[in-house]
């Protein structure tokens, strides 16, 4: 049972990394949002699996939250925003997709390298999960860095949160407080982001962060 469950856990974690790569690969808004939805689905699945093998029922809540909020609510909201802002066009990534992919692979390698010295004492399960979640986080960061568009940056940020959830649930027996806080923070984060996008929409024609920078005080 252990062996199998481990493999399945790996499967999910690895799947998550894969989806992160797909996120990087996307260059259209709507496609990006849909991919993110699937990202959330994978996360919720893996969380559910963890709940199952750890006999930790409270994890089901987390997975449910992830599924509902991030797989459905947020994508819909994002679609709305996109439509309203009229930016289904291309995302104009800063660097080409190819280089981004290569960088992503490098990051994954790095995260594995970092995890290697950790002794098995912490539990192989945790260790592998950590490696994967770390790479998901790094990929999310890479995404935020390599996109010009506010919405895609938000998506990158949320994929980071997914990575965190993966790590948190991988950590066996971690008290509930963390999940709550994660969900809570994401919720608040969404509210704030929504408010901001709304206000920004009021003032600018686009949410491209690049344009915001013109409005800084000290531009000579």
């Amino acid at each position, binding site marked *: 049972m252990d062996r199998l469950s481990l493999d399945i856990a790996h499967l999910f974690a690895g799947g998550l990394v894969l989806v992160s790569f797909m996120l990087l690969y996307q260059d259209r808004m709507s496609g990006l949002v849909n991919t993110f939805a699937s990202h959330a689905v994978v996360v919720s699945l893996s969380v559910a699996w963890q709940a199952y093998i750890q006999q930790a029922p409270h994890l089901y809540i987390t997975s449910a939250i992830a599924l509902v909020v991030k797989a459905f609510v947020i994508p819909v909201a994002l679609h709305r925003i996109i439509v309203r802002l009229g930016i289904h066009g291309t995302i104009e990534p800063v660097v080409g997709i190819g280089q981004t992919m290569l960088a992503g692979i490098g990051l994954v390698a790095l995260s594995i390298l*970092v*995890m290697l*010295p*950790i*002794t098995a*004492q*912490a*539990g192989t399960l*945790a260790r592998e999960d*950590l490696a994967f*979640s*770390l790479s998901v*986080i790094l990929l999310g*960061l890479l995404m*935020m860095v390599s996109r010009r568009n506010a919405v895609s*940056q938000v998506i990158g*940020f949320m994929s*980071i*949160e997914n*990575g*965190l959830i993966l*790590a*948190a649930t991988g*950590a*066996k*027996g*971690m*008290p509930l*407080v*963390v999940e709550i*806080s*994660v969900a*809570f*923070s994401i919720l*608040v*984060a969404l509210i*704030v*982001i929504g408010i*901001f996008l709304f*206000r*920004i929409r009021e*003032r600018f024609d686009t949410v491209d*962060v690049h344009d*915001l*920078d013109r*409005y*800084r*005080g*000290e531009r000579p």
Partner: protein
Amino acid sequence: MSDAGSLAVGAILLVPALSAALLALLPDDRTAARLNVVATLLTLGSAVVLFAVRPAPGHFLIVDDLNVVFIVLSTFVGSTTSVFSASYIAHELEIGRLAPAYLRFYHAMYQTLMFAMNLALLSNNIGLMWVAVELATLTTVMMVGIYRTAAALEAAWKYFILGSVGIALALFGTILVYLAARSVVGEGLDAMAWSVLVGSAAKFDPALLNLSFVFLLLGYGTKVGLVPLHAWLPDAHAEGPTPISAVLSGLLLNVALFAVLRFKTIMSSNPGALAPGPLMVSLGLLSVLFASFMLYRRHDIKRMFAYSSIEHMGIVTFAFGMGGALANFAGLLHMTLHSLTKSAIFFCVGHIAQVKGTQHMPDIRGLTVSHPLLGWGMVLGVVAIAGLPPMGIFVSEFLIVTSTFARQPALAVVLGLSLLVALGALLLRLNGLAFGDPYGSNEPSKASFVPVFAHFGLVFAAGIWLPPALVAWFQHVAALLS
């Protein structure tokens, strides 16, 4: 005894929370301001009680030598700032920069921020602390954006993005710490409680700890404003309301630093883990160097002092990174004095900006002629922040530089030179601000100078004479940290 202590702890947390709720409902701005002051004073009072009695550490809350210093400091600065904010906000309402609706929001947020910071300081649970810091971040984001100008929104947005990323990194670090602890102290709350972690950190897996410290340092370091994670800080200070700038510089940075310190103690009590010192020293030195050069091209007065906050946070981090009883002592002292001085400076700056109607320094001249109190307050502030006697920061910088030079001459030289560079920039600006022929409006300022000179008085006293009790306290804490 201890129940009195737990009562005090409860008060520290509940008073801000309740008054936040109350203020959210209260329409009248005058009473709101007063209530704000009263609440902060109450909190301060109950914080002082903790000196006398303290409750036994629980699962979620703890009061120990380290955080009492921070709590008293933050509640004190919080109360003085609320006094200042009363007069500041009144003026903002007059000129109609703030709508009353936003005012209500502002006061509620202020108390929420107090609550969050006290919680972060008091929490005995790394997860809880993380939540508190997160809450503090969100509230400050709200307040930075409160003016709804393009620049303000942009600053808030930047602050929000960078802050959330930092918070995310911190969370990952927290999880790693839990993992490291779990295999030793077993699952559950114990594995996240300071009181337990510090004791048994020696047996943790060093590799995990190293990894976690990297993430925590970056995560909370973003809040501290260490270069290169500092980008949010100057704009957030410059665009938000001045009381918030004061609170940010005076308190929030300390709270984040406090978190870093907590984890540093865990790290340093584990022999196998890599010494956290070098990382902190290099980040701190980088911040000092960078910030002191950035001071030169500033035109916005609040942004300039924000950079000086970065510089001083760098100094403190540097000191704690150097470690050793002397350096730790100096670091604590420097942090305390810096939050006092910097908040006082921001009080002055707020009034100046209101009187002159601008934050653009070239348009502010000859203050000692037009507004002697404000002008000399400014001079005093720059003298203090530049670490010149008789103000207290001289003491801490003296200790830091001398104690470092005996151990790491090169580092001390770099530190000293960058301090000199910073001094040059500040003086250059001061010449323009305080001296020369006055320029701009000469309307008298209805400022409340009590908070300003209360802070300066304390800093001055610290420069002349440190009370032995305080010294013993700091030395004890310094011993704890090293």
